[in-house]
């Protein structure tokens, strides 16, 4: 077991001629709450997609919990290993209730199939009850217990995002990747989100978030990685990053005062 839960080594991803990520290294310790920031097109979401198994890297490797993940391991199997994610565009299952959405998150932690369900065998019924109770637990964890019976598409965006986090937590991840969890939220919701993310970390889940909102990142993350045009230009504590000349120049523009 290595001292890092996630290591990314020499990661390069090219889409045709466009190099989205160029030779990026990063290492995250278990229990860390890290953020990846950078302007649009910096390669943040590409990084997530490679770690989650959606894209295969052009070069370089991803090591999770000391084990090198072959690019052939698909997203579904990475979930079983302990990597969960949310999406920038939320991607809830619209025609299902909030609770059902979280129940889908229990998929890898349950096992009954067509035959058990079709004939209502005792193990399937028992498992259904377990899934229901566990899903309620995870929905309560993100404080959306009261939304359980509502169709996902009918819930306001801010709460949809929390349900999506609950759904990801329901997979019992070791590593949680949050893709722009703050986008589209108001100030109060962002404060709640920040608290929630810290609570998730305190539960022992390593969290990496990709985020545009500086206040949210600086007030939440303990370790910040800055990408620009596919390259890592800095990393450190929020304080260090905020005062890094390269970051100020590349990301925030010259001579900009930080909040």
């Amino acid at each position, binding site marked *: 077991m290595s001292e890092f839960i996630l290591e990314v080594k020499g990661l390069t991803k090219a889409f045709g001629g466009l190099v989205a990520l160029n030779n990026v290294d990063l290492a995250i310790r278990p229990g860390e709450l890290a953020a990846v920031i950078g302007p649009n097109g910096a390669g943040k979401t590409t990084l997530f997609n490679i770690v989650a198994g959606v894209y295969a890297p052009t070069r370089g490797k991803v090591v999770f919990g000391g084990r090198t993940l072959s690019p052939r391991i698909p997203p579904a199997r990475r979930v079983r290993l302990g990597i969960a994610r949310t999406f920038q565009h939320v991607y809830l299952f619209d025609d299902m209730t909030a609770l059902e959405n979280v129940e889908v998150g229990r*998929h890898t932690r349950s096992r009954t199939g067509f035959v058990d369900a079709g004939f209502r065998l005792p193990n399937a019924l028992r498992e259904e009850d377990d899934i229901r109770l566990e899903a309620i637990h995870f929905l309560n964890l993100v404080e959306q217990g009261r939304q359980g019976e509502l169709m996902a598409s009918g819930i306001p965006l801010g709460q949809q995002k929390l349900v999506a986090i609950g759904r990801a937590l329901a997979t019992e991840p070791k590593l949680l990747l949050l893709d722009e969890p703050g986008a589209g939220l108001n100030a109060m919701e962002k404060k709640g989100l920040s608290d929630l993310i810290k609570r998730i970390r305190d539960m022992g889940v390593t969290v990496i978030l990709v985020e545009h909102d500086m206040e949210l990142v600086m007030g939440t993350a303990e370790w910040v990685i800055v990408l620009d045009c596919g390259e890592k230009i800095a990393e450190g504590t929020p304080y260090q990053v905020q005062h890094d000349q390269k970051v100020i120049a590349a990301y925030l523009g010259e001579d900009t005062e930080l909040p």
Partner: protein
Amino acid sequence: MLKRPRFKWTHLAAAIGLAILVSLPWVLSGLNPHYLTICIMVGIFTLVTVGLCLLMGYTGQVSLGQAAFFGVGAYTSAILSKTYGLPPWGAMAIAAIGTGLFAYVIGWPILRLRGNYLAMATLALGVIMFIVFREADEYTYGTDGITGIPNLSIAGFAFNTDFRYFFLVWFFCIAVLLISQNVVNSRTGRALRAIRDNEAAAESMGVNALQLKAKVFALGAVYASLAGSLLVHYWGAVGPNMFDVSASIEVITMAVVGGLASVWGAIFGAGAVTYLNDVLVDVGSYNIIAWGLILMVVMIFLPKGLWVHLREGVSRWQRRRKEKTGI
């Protein structure tokens, strides 16, 4: 255990529906025996339709080739029982298992495709299988078809009249509908719906989408195969024209008319389409026009299908009633 609701209107409706169904053979054989034949055909097509509903309505995957599996089941049953003299039940079981495996294997490459491409691939499968049924004369006797296929029987009790066959077909039908409903309301069913709503998100929740799609494709094929076997042991004959592309389209029509994302709607879809086909025979060559018009009207006014609209209507009525009585 979590508490499960005790009394439901659906239980009452199910009891009434079952009572009507069971009394049908007596009523119809007195009224007009022809309608008993139609009811048997409705049952057979319901089996094919519900498989397609699971695939299209719940998993979001198109199949324009469902008649292929219907045909594989029918011919396998016919050839094994007539040509090779196997007992009909054995032939039926082998047909179902064989068709399921066939669909599962075909499903892996085909179901990687999406949308229109999947539609084209399944359409091609339907066309290919139709040609196989017609041209493999050594086994299928080409356009002449196979005749003299033995009846199904249990311990000397032969299902050789419409009256008896009705119960056999609808026994299979209700069993398959119940099994399908249980699947839909389970971990697996949720995963299927997750694939329909957003495949990328479903995979990020640990759902192996391709494998599950192949499995539900195979399940639908098994249903279609059972229907095909029931058809040939009923008619005693089989020919290729029952399994052409237009048969696949007809099954899709049934699924859509009944309600794609519903299990019990399959009965209504199969019923409406089979009945219309029968009635419109009298209209002669204009029947295709009448057909098209009726379909258009249904799609404009009842886009979710007969069953779903009926269910929604009933629950609206219940809500109004609740508000009125203040409970």
